Structures are given as C-alpha cells and as structure tokens.
C-alpha cells in the first residue's frame, strides 16, 4: 500500500519500510528546538528529576530565545539565565534575540524529509520545506534530548489539492484562514495536512510557511507542502542539500481530499476568539470596527513579503492618531533585508514602531500588550480570549495588507478603502 509524505518521513525515522495510521513507532529525531517559553522548566527537570542526566547528541539540539526577548522583568531574566547557562555548559547552539524560532530554524536548519520536534506548537511550519515538524511539551523534549528518540503515533493524512494562483491583493494568509474556517479549529486534530497540486507549487517558500505554520490551528500534528525544485533551491541558497524529497504515492490513503481554486480566495478577517471564526473582509469592513492597536509580525506573517505588502499600503500615509502600529520582523535577516529595501523607513514614516525580532504582540506577554476592552488587528497566529493581554480585549486576524490599511484608517478595512 502506498504512503503519504508524512508516513514516509515517519517510516524513515523509524527505520522501517512501511507505516500505517494509528501504528505507534519509536523514531530517531533529526533535530529538536526549544525556546524560552518552556526551556527553564526542561532544564529544571533535567537537573532534578533524571536518574542519569545525559544528552544523546548536542548537535541536534537548538535553543532559541524569542518569546520574551529582551527580558522584561527579573523573573524572566532568571529563566533566560538558566537557559543560557545550560546551553553553554552542554555545548548546545543558542540564539538570543535573532528572530522568532521557526524563522531561524527555516533559515539555518530544516531539510526536507526530516522529523523535527519543537517545544512550540507552530513547529508545523517546517512542512514548507517538506519536513515533518511537530510541537511537543518540555517532558517530550527532555526525553528526546536524553535518548535522541521518541514515540510517534502515525496520523492520518488530509490532502489539500490547490489549483491556480491567488489574485493580486490576496495572500497565503487569506488562503489558510479560509481553509481553517472551512474545516474548523479541530478539523485536522491528530492529522497531517498535506498540500499539493499546481497551486501549491506556485507558492513561494515564504507563502508555504504561512500555510504550514497555521495548520496547528486546525489541530494538525503536521502541515507539509509537497517539496519541489523551489525547496531544493531554498536549501542550496542556505548552504544545505535537499536529500529526502518525499511525495505521496499514487495509491496513498487520505482520510479526506479537498480541492481549492486559489483564484476564488478572498481577503479574510477572522473575528475573536477563535481562529476558525471566519469572515470576509468585504462584510467586516461595513461594520467600521475601531482598532486600538495593529500588529504586523510573528512566525506566521512577519517575513519580507508581508512587510513589503504593508509598506506598499502605508507609503505616503499616516497611522490614525487613535492607533498604535507595531511591527516586529520575523528575524534579523528579514529586518536587514527590509532595511535595505527601504521598507522599514516607509513604515516608520507612516508612524510604525519597529521592534526587535521576537514573538512580540502575538503572544501577549512582553510587548504591545493590550488593555481592558481594547481591539487589536494582527498578523499573529491566534486570537484566543486574552491572547494579547486583558481577558476582555479582542483580537482580529488578517493579512499584513489588511492590517496596514486598518492602521491608517483606524477601523478594520482593506487597502482599497483608503
């Protein structure tokens, strides 16, 4: 029986010729990533709970400080110190303040066909390069760090055949928010979301990251775009070789198959408090919803094309006086590229506050936290109750272009409304 991309990756990591859904396998992990959201707890467990503390292969582990960077209070500073010291003591590669963990992993590590555990739910992003990335907690991470392996129950795969191209002014962000709206916040729970078809291959690697990153918001264990020459090129440009470019077999079994015509996708605004609370911009704009804050950034939508789209919208315009407009590039590399292109200047001239590369407003803990009853429109990953600050505050999700237009207007709208 044929296998899907995800099944082939698990089979490779398990050292077996075939796997099928619901089998449980012991797998070797190709790589592991942990960030400052949980690493201090992992370090405590390593030091205090293990009978025989040891690290299977330090070169497969990456620590990235991105959630509360730079530290905003003494307790965070202590958590960071713990993470930093552990990395130094054990020779683990540490990134501090260089960008959001998933963006750095894509730029510096991920290869197609790899099985990667990350102590962060949006590890699903790595499917943009044909890898199986999945989020785990710190106990799972610790077990993997000590043994170099873990256990995986093989998920079923949902196949999304994408056709054609997105229209001008419509983004990968609108596409994945549409898909999540269609299948629901638990529509892919414990499943792989596999994207293929000419429409998928038309998307850039950055756009594929937008898709795969948000698959966890439908409950998926992994999101994977069928790898192609663009993946091989990306790897080469970043000094790596693409070895395991898996495709699903013609007789692979899918739990369901969905077809999407990309030319039919429209700009989306997701309403509070769930990522599947889908609405179309053309309906929401009529309500003229006032916003207090606008955020462009995050592992989902803080890359160069997103900042570029925002800059095009705000060029020569000014942020509404009632709005705080915050931008955090996804990595220092993105930041530098945006500086060179003049994007940062354009955004600043429009009134944006440019922040260091980190998770920032998206995770509601250290930058741009919103107060009681305030409204945020964001390119972040989720809009749960209280996600960006006070429990009574509200978060809308949209593309960078829609967010930028809303910053200028002071109400939720698209670029054509300015």
């Amino acid at each position, binding site marked *: 029986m044929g296998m899907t991309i995800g099944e082939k990756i698990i089979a490779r990591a398990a050292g077996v010729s075939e796997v099928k859904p*619901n089998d*449980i396998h012991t797998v070797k992990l190709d790589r592991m990533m942990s960030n*400052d*959201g*949980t690493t*201090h*707890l992992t370090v*405590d*467990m390593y030091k205090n*709970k*293990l*009978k*025989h503390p040891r690290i299977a292969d330090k070169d497969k582990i990456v620590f990235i400080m991105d*959630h*509360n960077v730079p530290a905003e209070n003494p*307790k*965070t500073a*202590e*958590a960071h110190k713990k993470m930093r010291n552990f990395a130094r003591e054990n020779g683990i590669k540490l990134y501090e303040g260089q960008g959001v963990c998933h963006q750095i992993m894509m730029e510096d590590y991920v290869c197609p066909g790899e099985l990667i555990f*990350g*102590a*962060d*739910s949006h*590890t699903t992003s790595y499917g943009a390069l044909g890898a199986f990335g999945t*989020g*785990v*907690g*710190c*106990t*799972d991470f*610790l*077990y993997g760090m*000590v*043994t170099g392996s873990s*256990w995986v*129950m093989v998920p079923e795969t949902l196949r999304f055949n994408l056709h054609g191209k997105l229209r001008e002014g419509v983004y990968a962000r609108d596409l994945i928010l549409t898909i999540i709206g269609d299948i629901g*916040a*638990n529509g892919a*729970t*414990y499943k792989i979301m596999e994207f293929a078809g000419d429409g998928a291959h038309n998307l850039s690697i950055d756009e594929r990251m937008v898709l795969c990153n948000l698959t*966890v918001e439908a*409950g998926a*264990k992994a999101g994977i775009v069928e790898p192609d020459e663009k993946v091989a090129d990306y790897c080469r440009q970043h000094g790596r070789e693409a070895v395991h470019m898996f495709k699903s077999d013609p007789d692979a079994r899918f739990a369901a198959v969905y077809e999407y015509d990309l030319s039919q996708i429209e700009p989306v605004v997701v309403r509070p408090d*769930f990522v599947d609370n889908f609405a179309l911009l053309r309906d929401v704009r009529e309500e003229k919803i006032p916003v207090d804050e606008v955020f462009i950034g995050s592992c989902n939508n803080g890359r160069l094309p997103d900042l570029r789209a925002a800059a095009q919208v705000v060029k020569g315009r000014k942020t509404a006086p009632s709005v705080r407009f915050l931008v955090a590039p996804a990595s220092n590399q993105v930041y530098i590229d945006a500086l060179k292109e003049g994007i940062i200047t354009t955004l600043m001239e429009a009134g944006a506050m440019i922040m260091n590369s980190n998770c920032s407003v998206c*995770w*509601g*803990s250290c930058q741009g*936290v919103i107060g009681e009853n305030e409204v945020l429109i964001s390119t972040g990953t*989720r809009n*749960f*109750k*209280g*996600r960006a600050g006070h*429990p009574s505050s509200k978060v809308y999700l949209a593309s960078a272009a829609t967010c930028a237009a809303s910053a200028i207007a002071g109400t939720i709208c698209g670029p054509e409304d300015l």
Partner: protein
Amino acid sequence: MSNQIWKFHNDVDTDQIIASQYLLLPDVEEMKQYTFESLDPDFAKNVHEGDIIVAGENFGCGSSREQAPSVLKALGVKAVIARSFARIFYRNSINIGFPVIVCKDLYDAVKDGDMADLDLSAGTVTAAGKTFTCTKLPEYMQNILSQGGLIASLNKEG
C-alpha cells in the same frame, strides 16, 4: 469516592488554562494560582484535591505549553474528562502522568458542581445516577501513564 465536577465548554485553549504572561515564572507551583484566570479567577482557590474537570470538544487547543496540564496536576485535579482533546495537550498530559479521558456521553449528562466517581483502572465514571464507559488509551500510552509519566519510565529504563 465522589469528587466535584468543574464543567467547561468546547475549545478551551491553553491560553485560558494558563496565560502566556505567567509561563516564565520560576516554577509550576508559582504559576498554578493563575489557572483558568480568564474563565474563573477563583478556580485555583476553590478547587479541591481530587476534583474532576469535564469539558466538551477540543480541550487544550492552542500552544504546546506543558504548563497547561502541569498546573492542573499541581492543583490536585484528578483528571480531565472531555468529549475530545487537542493533540499536544493530550500527549503532554500522558507524558507527565496526568489522566486525560475521552468520554463522549458524560458532558451532556452532568452540570457544574455535580459529584462524580471516577474509576481510573476500570475506565468508568459514575455521575448523575449513571455509569459511563470511557474510551481506552492505546496500551503504549497507558503504560506511560501508569508508570507516572515519561520521565518516570525513562528513569526505570536507567
């Protein structure tokens, strides 16, 4: 022994279980006072050892923060019984030795504050005058859970 039920709705996400701003506190003992803060600010004060959480679909959706099942365990919650769970929360719970139980029919039969008798080894829960059978865990996961979690099983391996 009967224990009190705390009933929650569908799609309870990990930000609601423990908000981002508390995750970098030094340890779970310090975090647990903020459990469910946005849904019920007094939950941590009022919950008793052995109490049971009953929820609808997709409990624990959202982030991978293991702090979510950890604060519930630290407060003495005996188990979460839901119609369904989000996968990372489910896996994290098993890994830390915290029982998460799928039971499709319990949710509609009970209300907040009811008493329930959960028999973990039999996989049954008795409440509102009826006994409900819960979905069995695969043997592999049941082993992790019954050893007290992944670290306990690792320490046993040596």
